[in-house]
């Protein structure tokens, strides 16, 4: 279908794209000798390990079972032996040493599946949203709310990252098929793919399909934010604390669509993903197919090592990813990039006083006022921080901090505010008696009985 232009939303920034570093590198397969797979690969609880040290596993074999609805299954990404199971940074990691064989243990492929089969397969294969949050796709496609549109998110608005772009031009057909399977599971007819205007090749590739509507999004970070892409492609405004299904929309990343295709047509669980290695400090920026659990050290070595001393090593995108302290970390299902940022690129300046320029509020895609949140949270007044800055609605896209001329740590302040507010929400209300004792100290007696003699309610006197 012919591409149409997306709507404009108020806010957003235009960061230096830096996509040219890796945009022309075709997806390459990286093979590894050892992987360490975290059992916590989704937004929910960690999965429960079902293998023991010393056990031999095949590629695609279940190694950790989902625990609860928002958890996801975890699979061995290479065939070999389970070396050990230990905690790394507070998360259980399963170390697997490769036996250099291609032994696989995939599920049987499905031909012409119905909606229930698709949903079950997505759940069995442990597919999570590959955009970053890692919300299980199975939960999203099992919604009982009326949904009429599937939005495929191909915006890839983060600077540096190009893996979704490569995926879109190399695996166009497969993504389209995966999207159709998801649409079938949801029972929707309309499929929209939102692509940022800096990827005209990808738009052209998707114009070939009759049942998919490509929408060209303005180059406006975060064009691929869930609320933003729903608004720019369909014009629906997603309210605060609402799910996309509440406005009849489901959003899926292109990577997720490809994973769904693989799961259904090849029976392949989610064991590898496309990933971008980029930054000025890496010798050869590349796009790679990387097994879940690959050490970052191996990835960097495969790309020729460092060309400059990196100032920051980031897993994920530069705007929302995590800075890591060493190369001894392992990729996850949701890791979309490994970036080695040189001193020039990385933001490591000292903050200067806020000059109230209001640029953070101008660029906020959620129309918040981050400077107020930062101001009040620094003073410890988290309720005012919420009242004047609406911190809980923040999507943590990082646009405000990117644009801040004073280099203030706004996202840190917002996260702190969110955490403090959450703490206050969960805290049981403490009841104090007049002596300042908490209720628990009074041995479970009702307050009236435990209160000192002179402060007991004077019912009888009033009646008399």
């Amino acid at each position, binding site marked *: 279908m012919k591409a149409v232009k997306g709507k404009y*939303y108020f806010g957003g*920034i235009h960061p230096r794209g830096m996509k040219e570093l890796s945009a022309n590198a075709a997806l390459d397969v990286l093979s590894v000798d050892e992987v360490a797979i975290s059992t916590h690969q989704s937004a929910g609880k960690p999965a429960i390990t079902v293998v023991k040290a010393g056990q031999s596993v095949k590629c695609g074999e279940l190694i950790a079972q989902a625990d609860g609805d928002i958890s996801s299954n975890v699979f061995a990404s290479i065939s070999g032996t389970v070396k050990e199971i230990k905690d790394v940074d507070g998360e259980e990691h399963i170390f697997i040493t490769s036996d250099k064989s291609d032994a696989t243990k995939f599920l049987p492929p499905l031909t012409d599946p119905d909606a229930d089969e698709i949903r079950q397969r997505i759940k069995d294969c442990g597919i999570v949203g590959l955009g970053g949050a890692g919300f299980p796709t199975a939960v999203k496609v099992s919604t009982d709310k009326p949904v009429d549109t599937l939005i495929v998110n191909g915006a890839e608005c983060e*600077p540096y990252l190009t893996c979704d772009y490569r995926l879109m031009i190399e695996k166009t057909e497969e993504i389209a098929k995966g999207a159709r399977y998801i649409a079938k599971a949801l029972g929707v007819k309309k499929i929209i793919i939102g692509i940022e205007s800096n990827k005209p090749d990808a738009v052209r590739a998707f114009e070939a399909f009759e049942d998919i509507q490509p929408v060209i999004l303005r180059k406006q970070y975060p064009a691929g934010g869930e*609320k933003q892409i729903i*608004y720019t492609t369909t014009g629906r*405004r*997603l*309210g*605060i*604390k*609402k799910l996309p299904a509440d406005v009849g929309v489901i959003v899926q990343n292109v990577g997720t669509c490809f994973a769904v295709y693989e799961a259904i047509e090849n029976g392949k669980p989610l064991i590898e993903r496309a990933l971008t290695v980029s930054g000025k400090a890496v010798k050869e920026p590349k796009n790679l197919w990387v097994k879940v659990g690959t050490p970052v050290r191996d990835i960097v070595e495969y790309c020729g090592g460092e060309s400059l*001393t990196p*100032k*920051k*090593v*980031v897993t994920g995108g*530069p*705007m*929302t*990813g*995590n*800075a*890591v*302290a*060493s190369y001894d970390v392992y990729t996850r299902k949701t890791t979309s990039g490994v*970036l080695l940022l040189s001193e020039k690129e*990385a*933001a*490591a*300046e000292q903050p*200067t*006083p806020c*000059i*109230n*320029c*209001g640029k953070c*509020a*101008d660029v906020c*895609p*959620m*129309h*918040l*006022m981050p400077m*107020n949140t930062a101001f009040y949270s620094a003073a410890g007044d988290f309720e005012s921080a919420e*009242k004047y800055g*609406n911190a809980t*609605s923040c999507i*943590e896209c*990082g646009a405000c*901090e*990117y*644009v*801040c*001329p*004073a*280099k203030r*740590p706004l*996202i*840190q302040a917002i*996260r702190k505010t969110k955490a403090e507010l959450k703490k206050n929400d969960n805290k049981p209300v403490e009841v104090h008696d007049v002596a300042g004792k908490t209720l628990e100290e009074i041995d479970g007696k009702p307050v009236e009985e435990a209160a000192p003699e002179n402060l007991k309610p004077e019912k009888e006197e009033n009646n008399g």
Partner: protein
Amino acid sequence: MDNTIVVSTPPHVKSRRTTRGIMIDVCIALLPSVIAGCVFFGWQALMIILMSVFACVATEFVYFFIQNKGFSKKCADAKAVCLRFVKQFDFTSVVTGLLLALILPTTDKWYEVFYEVLIGGIFSIAVVKMFFGGTGKNIVNPAAAGRAFMFISFSITTYTAAKISALDFTSGVFSDATNLSWLLNSTGNPETKATVLDLFLGTGIAGCIGETCKAAILAGYVYLAVRGVIKWWQPLLFIAVFGFTAVFMSGFTYVKSGGYIFDMELFLPHVLSGGVLFGAIFMFTDYTTSPKGIYGQIFYYVIGAVLVAVLRYFTKLEVTSFVILLMNLVVPLIDKYFIRKPFGYKKAKKEGK
């Protein structure tokens, strides 16, 4: 230090724009006005500008030096404190100095008024800015406050002493008399009134150093808007609202003398007279003392423009800098009442009902 990998919260890339860069941009935008002032008023104007900038920067330095204990231990740390000052220097005091000088009238004998300029600069930086916490913490615009301070402190003496006195604020406005007083009072000889072109270029017009040449001010506006330092619509909104209100107000006078009540021919003379354009572009848009949210900004500019027009009509004086001070004081209130609602807020409310 070089080999350490930095860990921080995202985002890991940031824009290259800094506070210092923005302030240097403002200085560059003020350069055309400085040059125009020097061309029209000679080297005396340049001396006033230099003195004002010197006073502001020196005050900030001395304040910083004392605050960081540069004098302790018999000045042992003096060098380190000086280096730290240079490192954190963000050009805000240069901007204040330039703004203060550009809204002052000039004189034939600069040395007669130099102490006045110095005191004005010291007041602007020390009392208005540094006492309140330095950059970004001042409540009112330092340059506007400095001008108001000088107006109250020195004008009366200089005005009565010599008629062509330099820092004669009342005449600073009324030396514009051929034009502004004609506009406001509809008195004076209409034949001597300046043409719109004269007003625009500043030729043959008396006035403050930076406020006369409107072409130079507009050049600065274009630079600031292109560089994204100010929002392009802010001064335009101010000027439009001001112009219409001023035309409307002067209509009352004109009807008595047989003119039209809404004579749009007066729009340009009103806008181009006095310091309105300069104030709208360089003073009202000051980050620290203007509202943060977009709705608050619209409110601020509209009310400010109406106030300038109305007060100028009734007082027959140049009131722009006083209105700036007045509006600056209201800004914290505006910020409190104009809070932006998050994206999708309305929808959520409707569904809740």
